[in-house]
């Protein structure tokens, strides 16, 4: 009887493309250190896409609910629709099971942060109520991107928001509190990513060890 592996996720094929060969294990189980980030991206991309749809839907709802002046509303709707278009592209890639270039995902998350920052700037900086949109944006990439990149993005957000807060005359204590919570969300997300990566590595290693033992037993029985 041959070995049968039941692959139950649609993303398995895409992970195969991101992982090099290794003996003994089926391809979808392979995940070298180099490929870990790439497969994290593949699996984590639905989180980013879902976050962005929520951003688009809630943004549109709020614009239509309490409209500002016509000119501002035009710009807001245009920005939301462009964001929706970009997200549709990424979502379509996911649905067609096509691998998205890593850099595209990195840039699109940076654009999310820039967009929130611009909206905060327009909305009186420190007084803007849109600060809270940083949190879902940070969650979505902190559970996907490598630590260095997450650190860079979160660090830049902290630096820029801190500056905006101070320039717009915000209370330094409240600014500091906000910056700490932004850091907390980024840290928690990335910490969880690292924990899960380590758990998967252990699971793979024990699986590989088990497979070796089973094959050795089969070989000795056959003899």
């Amino acid at each position: 009887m041959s070995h049968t592996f039941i692959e139950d996720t649609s993303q398995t094929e895409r992970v195969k493309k991101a992982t090099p060969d290794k003996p003994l294990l089926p391809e979808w189980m392979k995940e070298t250190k180099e490929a870990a980030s790439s497969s994290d991206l593949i699996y984590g991309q639905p989180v980013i896409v879902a976050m962005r749809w929520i951003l688009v839907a809630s943004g549109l709802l709020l614009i239509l609910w309490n409209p500002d002046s016509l000119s501002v509303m035009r710009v807001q709707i245009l920005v939301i629709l462009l964001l929706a278009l970009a997200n549709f592209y990424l979502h379509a890639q996911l649905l067609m099971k096509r691998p998205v270039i890593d850099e595209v995902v990195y840039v699109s998350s940076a654009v999310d942060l820039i967009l929130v920052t611009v909206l905060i700037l327009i909305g009186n900086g420190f007084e803007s109520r849109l600060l809270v949109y940083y949190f879902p944006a940070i969650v979505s990439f902190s559970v996907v991107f490598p630590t260095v990149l997450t650190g860079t993005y979160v660090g830049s957000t902290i630096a820029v928001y801190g500056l905006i807060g101070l320039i717009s005359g915000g209370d330094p204590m409240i600014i500091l509190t906000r910056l700490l919570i932004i850091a907390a969300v980024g840290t928690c997300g990335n910490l969880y990513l690292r924990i899960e990566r380590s758990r998967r590595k252990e699971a793979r290693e024990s699986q590989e060890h088990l497979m070796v033992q089973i094959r050795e037993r089969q070989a000795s029985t056959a003899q």
Partner: protein
Amino acid sequence: MTELRSAAQEAAEDLFFGQVVIIWARWFVIISGVIVVLWSSNNTSELTTAVLMVVPLIAINFFVHGRYLMERPINQNLLLGLSLVDIIVITIIVLFWQEPNGYLSPYYIFYYPFLLAVAFVFPVRVSVPYTLLILILYSVACLVTDSSLVADPYQLEGLIIRLITMATVGGLGAFYWRIQRGRRRAAAGHGMKAPASS
């Protein structure tokens, strides 16, 4: 075939490995809380009251972190109980710690790290009610402090933005938890038939 890892064991491992995320979320909130307390207290009695609220949180987190470092993490019920204490303390801060309170209090952001950390550690059947509880607690805290909020479109819009983003953070955490569980199961060979002798 018999699975190598039971669902109960998997849940226990989730708790074992994941609770450090809750611990770090709590440390961040404690640090922020200490800064707020030291910075904003106007007199010694106010500082004393505030410190009395922060010290138990620090003691709790030392205990939990210590147990984790000794590889004897606390059980699910205690961890969940402490997570409830966290959000009750934050709600008290939103309601009573210096004016402005309620919707205008800037300390509602303390909810976010806990929303995320709990969604990472507990299964969806726990994390979703936890998220809902936070949304209800915060909404009630805002309405109790100033019920005219409902009649003010600007403030109501602000409240809804906060509730949407809180729900999103909790929801994304739970979504990611499910993705990771699937990946882990795949890596551990769940659903895989063992090779049989030919």
